[in-house]
């Protein structure tokens, strides 16, 4: 819930899993004194010389070519809203979209699709990623104010290393259920003053088949992703790093939506300066300037049931800057300061082409500019060896306005053509203690707010396929506010670790659409019009737990559980709340071989929001089997993996999946990886 005191770094898919598997739990050196509670950080590493040890690597990233979605799906407290085989939207506990921060290396990025087909996670490949860090609740406020937490995707950057200065890998895989071919490669080199890294990924998938052996139309996709990072070492511990990620996807099918994505393009660039001054009060200062641009266009030309052809392109530009400093003010007192500013411009339009009539045009998201300026402060204070206090706070100011006459006129219909100015404060405090070397406990309370997002303020007949309503914005919306409490506890020794979190969030001014009976829907087939409104109070509570068996005679095991319960004050369940879900992983390794069996199941979700037209979801249970062999020959590493996912070919769907469309049936995956490091 708060920035964690303790971090388990879970190394994913280290290319020398033997080393990874045999070593014990690794913790960040600066934080290693206390026992771990962190369930929320996944490190996606491919540097063999990095071989920080790893216990659950193969749990999160099941093969070298897992997607960002697949990794997120297995993280604690993370679920995904699925609209297609690709481009799933992360949900933290029950929070999504404007309620959470989605950042890349601390950079804000906003999708350009008004139908949320493009959460920022789709523009990042695990090949670009060092680490995905989620923070639940209002404490996830370092990169931006939020009530639901944050997902920060830390990119792999060029790094200076002393040994094994050259690293390269190449991976290819094939999935049978959608005839998908995935390929990726990365090269990094480190010299005295310069280091660089380049990587690329290509994916092509056809429509996937589901249990019962039929094919889901419009579920294929194709994309390339390329990234580069160059670092320059300057004198006196100064470093400059330039990063770029490009991502181009096309013909991305969204079977749960009336349209597919014809093209989705992202350019994500940043330049950062880092100064490390260890052993002083001022430990480090990092300053980053960044710019990202997203273009997304929807496409209905592949659909047979299109009543009228339409074009729906969207644009999003974000430019920003942040500086952050860490300080050691006496032993056991770590302070972090951060100041940031970002500007996001977005626009989405719709043009329809009726027969024998004038083309029809509107801005579904009128040209709008949002400015965010914030300051963040956190202090982690150790009281003796076994107690710690943590305080964090952020104050953010948001200014939003419409920037085109057309947009102004359009929004004037609903009186939403006004600028919006907001102060958005948040703060949290936590206390943690460790006992008897292997027990730990942490109690946190937090207060958070979030300003409404662009669509909630200025959306204009945004069609939401989930409930079938057109949504219009409301510039009068109040900030959504929350008061939260969380208790984490854990037991950990060399063989076993058990952790759990229990949380309760109370939400005020909950933002949701309310039906406007007097308005007629714009979208053909829509059920009506909803306007965003503050619905009053809501509550969310839940639990997450994880049991890990580190390694006993080649045997490892991991079990996770997540559950959330959420309702409005009147008792009505909140929509899109995942039911209880568990994973069980058993792994046995011997020499170069490993075999892994996984169970995955979720209870039925019958607590549904009627007004949203939500469907109840039945129980499902799945079995996955994986095996692999790796061969190390000097500097070379060769690895073959084979898996059967959904072994029993179950026809199932998860509760957050839209459109009652089943997930993939039995899927054979074969992957081949080669890595070189010297």
């Amino acid at each position, binding site marked *: 819930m708060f920035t964690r005191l303790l971090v388990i770094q879970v190394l994913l898919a280290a290319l020398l899993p033997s080393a990874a598997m045999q070593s014990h739990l690794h913790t960040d050196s600066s934080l290693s004194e206390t026992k771990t509670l962190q369930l929320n950080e996944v490190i996606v590493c491919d540097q063999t010389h990095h071989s920080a040890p790893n216990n659950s690597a193969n749990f999160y990233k099941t093969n070298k070519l897992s997607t960002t979605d697949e990794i997120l799906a297995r993280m604690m407290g993370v679920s995904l809203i699925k609209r297609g085989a690709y481009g799933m939207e992360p949900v933290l506990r029950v929070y999504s979209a404007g309620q959470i921060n989605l950042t890349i290396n601390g950079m804000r990025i906003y999708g350009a699709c008004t139908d949320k087909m493009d959460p920022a996670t789709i523009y990042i490949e695990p090949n670009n990623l060092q680490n995905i860090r989620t923070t639940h609740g209002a404490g996830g406020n370092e990169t931006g104010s939020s009530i639901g937490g944050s997902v920060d995707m830390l990119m792999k950057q060029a790094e200076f290393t002393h040994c094994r200065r050259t690293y390269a890998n190449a991976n290819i895989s094939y999935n049978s259920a959608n005839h998908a071919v995935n390929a990726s490669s990365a090269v990094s080199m480190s010299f005295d003053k310069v280091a660089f890294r380049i990587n690329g990924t290509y994916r092509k998938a056809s429509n996937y088949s589901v249990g019962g052996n039929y094919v889901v139309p419009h579920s294929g996709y194709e994309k390339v992703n390329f990234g580069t990072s160059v670092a320059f070492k300057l004198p006196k511990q100064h470093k400059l790093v330039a990063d770029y990620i490009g991502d181009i996807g096309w013909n991305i099918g969204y079977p749960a939506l009336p349209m597919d994505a014809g093209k989705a393009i992202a350019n994500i660039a940043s330049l950062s300066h880092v100064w490390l001054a260890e052993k002083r009060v001022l430990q480090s200062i990092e300053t980053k300037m960044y710019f990202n641009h997203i273009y997304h266009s929807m496409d209905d030309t592949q659909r047979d049931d299109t009543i*009228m052809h339409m074009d729906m392109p969207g644009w999003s530009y974000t430019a920003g800057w942040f500086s952050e400093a860490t300080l050691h003010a006496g032993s056991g007192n770590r302070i972090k300061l951060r100041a940031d500013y970002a500007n996001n411009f977005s626009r989405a339009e719709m043009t329809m082409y009726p027969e024998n009539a004038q083309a029809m045009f509107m801005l579904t998201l009128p040209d709008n500019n949002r400015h965010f300026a914030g300051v963040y402060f956190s202090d982690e204070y150790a009281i003796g060896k076994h107690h710690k206090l943590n305080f964090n706070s952020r104050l953010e100011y948001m200014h939003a306005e419409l920037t085109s006459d057309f947009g102004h006129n359009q929004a*004037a219909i609903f009186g939403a053509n006004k600028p919006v100015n907001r102060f958005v404060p948040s703060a949290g405090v936590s206390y943690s203690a460790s006992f008897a070397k292997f027990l730990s406990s942490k109690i946190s309370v937090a207060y958070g707010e979030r300003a409404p997002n662009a669509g909630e303020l200025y959306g204009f007949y945004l069609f939401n396929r989930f409930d079938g309503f057109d949504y219009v914005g409301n510039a009068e919306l109040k900030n959504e506010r929350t008061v939260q409490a969380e208790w984490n506890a854990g037991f950990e020794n060399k063989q076993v670790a058990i952790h759990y979190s229990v949380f309760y969030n109370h939400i005020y001014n909950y933002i949701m659409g309310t039906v406007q009976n007097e308005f007629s829907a714009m979208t053909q087939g829509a059920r009506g019009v909803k306007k965003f409104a503050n619905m009053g109070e809501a509550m969310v509570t839940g639990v997450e737990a994880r049991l890990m068996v580190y390694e006993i005679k080649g045997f490892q095991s991991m079990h996770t559980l997540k559950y959330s319960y959420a309702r409005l004050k009147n008792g009505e369940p909140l929509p899109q709340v995942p039911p209880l879900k568990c994973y069980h992983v058993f792994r046995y390794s011997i020499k170069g071989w490993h075999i892994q069996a996984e169970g995955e199941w979720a209870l039925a979700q019958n607590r549904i929001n009627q007004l949203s037209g939500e469907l109840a979801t039945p129980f499902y249970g799945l079995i996955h089997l994986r095996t692999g062999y790796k061969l190390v020959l000097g500097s070379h590493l060769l690895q073959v993996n084979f898996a059967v996912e959904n072994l029993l070919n179950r026809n199932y769907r998860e509760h957050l999946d839209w459109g009652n469309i089943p997930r993939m049936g039995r899927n054979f995956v074969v992957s081949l990886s080669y890595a070189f490091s010297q």
Partner: protein
Amino acid sequence: MNKYFQAVAAILIAVFLFSSCKKENHNHNHYPIPSNLKLLASGYAEGSATRIDVYAADSFFSGYNSLYLALYDSASNERQTDADVTLMPMMSMMGGMNHSAPFENPATAKPADGLFTCAVVYIMPSSTGNTWKLNITVLNNRTGLQGTAALDVNVLQPSLSRMKSVTALDDSAKLFISIVKPFVPVVGVNDFEITIHKKASMMSFPAANDYTTEVNPQMLSMGHGSPLNVNPVPDNNGHYKGKLNFTMSGDWRVFLKLNHNGAVADSTLYFDVTIP
């Protein structure tokens, strides 16, 4: 240096004062015509020694025409801005029958901007054998002279009707309903203004102020309407004002229902509108 500067400043000030005085004198009888107006007709009101120039934003069309009259002394060509102006539009039809049309005389004899604002609702377009004349009578209050000009007017039928006539269900009155605003509709909020005139005789079309209206814009190709429109309510002189919202560009049909004394007067009326 300082003296030199003062001298230059003095000259500049003098030039400025002189030029501005000159302008003032020149402007004394000068009322500029707004650049968006077009000269549509011109003629002499014989007996009043006055020339009348008729301006409008567009050509004459069947519907509510806002007209702007500029009067000139026919000898000196100076603008005349104090006059009683009255209109009488007249259609002579092929069969020899004549009829007038609804019109609005200028509200004042001394318009502030020098332009006499008036209106004519042409209830049919000109065609072969059916010709419109606009008779304008001027009483020049400065000279006391009075005369009438009879201007030939060519009334066009717009591609989308801006005026319609219906026979009321309740009292069989013949009603003429015209759109005053929006002239060029936009996506968003539009001021919506209509006029309702009743045919009392071939020569008399008084304004009707006692109707209530219900407006309902629909995009027929999509089967949806638009929200938060404001039904036009009587303003005065047969004008009704409300708001018309268009959520997107394209072809719209604006349905307008008329009620009179609690009974439905008409429920078939509509205007087609295209938003570019």
